[in-house]
């Protein structure tokens, strides 16, 4: 996949006007930051043999809660922590139902996706809520070396979850459980606990990303991030993460996120119609995954 990314970068640099301009690079990184952050935990979900469709809704709900809290109490740390706690709760519920009760992850998170989206509409009365508190917007609008806060949050999460995956018992257990959960259980691994933790982290990270998004665009919008879950899963799959569990690397996932970002960025620069962009994104996903399959068959 690294090859695909390199090829894309070379082609884009050669044929897409302004692609290599610093302004554009900044914009590209900012554009992938939301997907990038949530891909960190989605990687764990997928590597553990499950997936999570409720992240888009969680992003929206978190933004709405943050807006409500800040407008009521004017306390920025509170407006960050309460949504994260809510996200963690949503995730834990997902994890509990999937791992403990044994309901299929597709059904569970599909249901949760609707429930959470519905709650976001309910508490916001269906419309965006403005965020004007400097303390909160400041969390998302600071920049350093020209790069916006979200990019740094994304990089920090890459580092944190890279460490978790490769260097902790939790990370290695995740891959083993995704590879063969019965063997993992008989080898004494805490399967249920690990899965609940994975989903809890997923909810918390999605909520964090949701708060940062709301702070960046100065509004908590219950309509936002629809279909985000599919973009996130696409990026992971592009990055070589197995949909059936057991395989996944942080570096691969980052490459996947960047491939998606470069394709969308190039198309925007080329003024390709948004509807066509959607078609192209799908084609890129399919082509890249087929290419990968071809490569691994040869090996």
């Amino acid at each position, binding site marked *: 996949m690294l090859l695909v990314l390199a090829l894309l970068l070379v082609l884009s640099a050669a044929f897409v006007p302004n692609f290599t301009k610093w302004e554009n690079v900044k914009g590209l990184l900012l554009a992938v930051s939301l997907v990038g952050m949530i891909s960190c935990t989605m990687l764990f979900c997928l590597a553990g043999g499950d997936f999570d469709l409720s992240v888009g809704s969680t992003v929206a709900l978190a933004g709405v809660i943050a807006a409500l809290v800040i407008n009521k109490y004017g306390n920025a740390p509170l407006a960050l922590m309460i949504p994260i706690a809510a996200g963690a709760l949503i995730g834990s519920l997902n994890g509990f139902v999937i791992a403990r009760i044994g309901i299929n992850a597709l059904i569970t998170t599909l249901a949760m996706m609707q429930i959470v989206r519905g709650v976001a509409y309910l508490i916001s009365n269906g419309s965006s809520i403005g965020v004007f508190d400097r303390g909160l917007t400041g969390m998302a609008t600071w920049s350093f070396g020209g790069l916006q806060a979200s990019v740094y949050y994304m990089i920090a999460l890459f580092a944190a979850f890279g460490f978790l995956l490769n260097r902790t*018992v939790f990370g290695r257990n995740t*891959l083993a459980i995704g590879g*063969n959960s019965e*063997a*993992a259980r008989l080898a004494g691994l805490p399967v249920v606990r690990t899965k609940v933790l994975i989903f809890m982290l997923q909810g918390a990270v999605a909520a964090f990303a949701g708060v940062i998004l709301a702070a960046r665009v100065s509004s908590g919008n219950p309509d936002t991030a629809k279909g985000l879950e599919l973009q996130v899963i696409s990026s992971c799959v592009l990055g070589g993460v*197995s949909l059936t569990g057991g395989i996944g690397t942080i570096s691969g996932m980052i490459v996947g996120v960047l491939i998606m970002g470069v394709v969308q960025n190039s198309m925007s620069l080329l003024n390709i119609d948004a509807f066509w962009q959607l078609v192209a994104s799908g084609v890129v996903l399919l082509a890249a995954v087929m290419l990968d399959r071809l490569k691994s068959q040869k090996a």
Partner: protein
Amino acid sequence: MPLEFRAIGKEFPGVKALEDVSFAVGEGSVHALMGENGAGKSTLLKILSGAYRADSGQIFLNGQSVSFATPVAALEAGVAVIYQELHLVPEMTVAENLFLGHYPAAGGWIKRSELRQRAVEIIGRIGEQIDPDMKVGSLSLAQRQMVEIGKALSRNAQVIAFDEPTSALSAREVERLFEIIADLRLQGKIILYVSHRMDEIFRVCDALTVLRDGKHIETFKSLEGVQPGVIVERMVGRTIDDIWGYRPRAQGEVIFDAKDITGPGLAAPQDIQVRAGEIVGIFGLVGAGRTELLKALYRGVPGCGGQIEIAGKPVRAGQPRDSIAAGIALCPEDRKKEGIVGLRSVLENTNLSARRNHALGGVVIDERWERSNAQTQVDKLRVRTPSLQQPIGLLSGGNQQKVILGRWLSESVQVLLLDEPTRGIDVGAKREIYELMYALAETGVGIIMVSSELPEVLGVSDRILVMRQGKLVAEVRREDATEAGVLALALPVAEEAA
């Protein structure tokens, strides 16, 4: 000759699976294929069946060079391979499975009555009492295997290859299978038969080819006058006189004391004791509850009861985790489903359980320990692997089993539960596993081994327990044990009367 392999070669990354393999198989004969795991038998069958493509060489069928792109193409050309893992759809009926992929149909509509009629006919030819309308999922393992053979018949296959067909069958079912094979032989079919069991080979086969390390070693055109020892020698490339290599050892106090053990598949509460340094063998026919007993002792399934003491200390009866913490370890019967994480590396599989004890604060992995422990176990157990990073699923069964043993040797194990520890493992690796068991027992570990191979139970155990219909029914000392005696104890009572 109707079926001929000429200079077949196949390479996988880092391994020459087959190299210049040539031999011929006659029709109306049963041709055995023997060799240690990793010798290339399975690869050869997969090339024959179209699952793999050979890198070099050709297969000739009836004088014509053939190469099948897919297993379906091979089936259509009359080549059927019946693997250890059966390829049936459990939710479909016997009749549907028999004709899967070539239903009698008109214009896209399945002709139900014809399907059923032809299924009955096929079942009649196998001579088994199976209802064609039953779901395959509700059949016994043996019956499913018969259905798999029926599938080959439904295609009117000329070549039928069996890959370890008896490994999951009871003695009576094996007899039935042999009758069917004899029948197929009379019909002039070309039959390849892969097995590790020497007694079967001599009963069923006319000719035999030995592979070792991907190379053709020798083809015996007739088995008359051939000594089993000679074949084993060809397989391992060295002489093995006594495959058990049993050595007596001192036994200590009772280290494992289980009382009133209950669990799914057990007919009554069971008691079992093991001394330090003792190897207890449990024999029973398929369905006697052997695996269920081990699982219950390990708390490997929900709904187990009873008390277990290790060296006088009660074990918390909960989950596998608690058992491991108390020093009880299980090597499961079904390695692929319950033992290994096939996608992950040898290193990951070795350290899977024990790493929690070596991680900083129980959280951050100690990479130095991870590497050194995995390397230690690989060296100690002589696991043959290209590297510690090799996915374990690509290793042979014997090496997978050694890695699982290595996983438990990384813990402080006091009682080792082994469920069919040498199933599907070749002679050379079997001996290595036995040696490991003796070596462990010599350090004071208590071992319970379940096996469906009676000679193995008699050859390795210090004491033999017999299971029948979900209960431990008899105990035989090593000195007093004979095959006939133990088998008689294991036979279901109802059948004795019949």
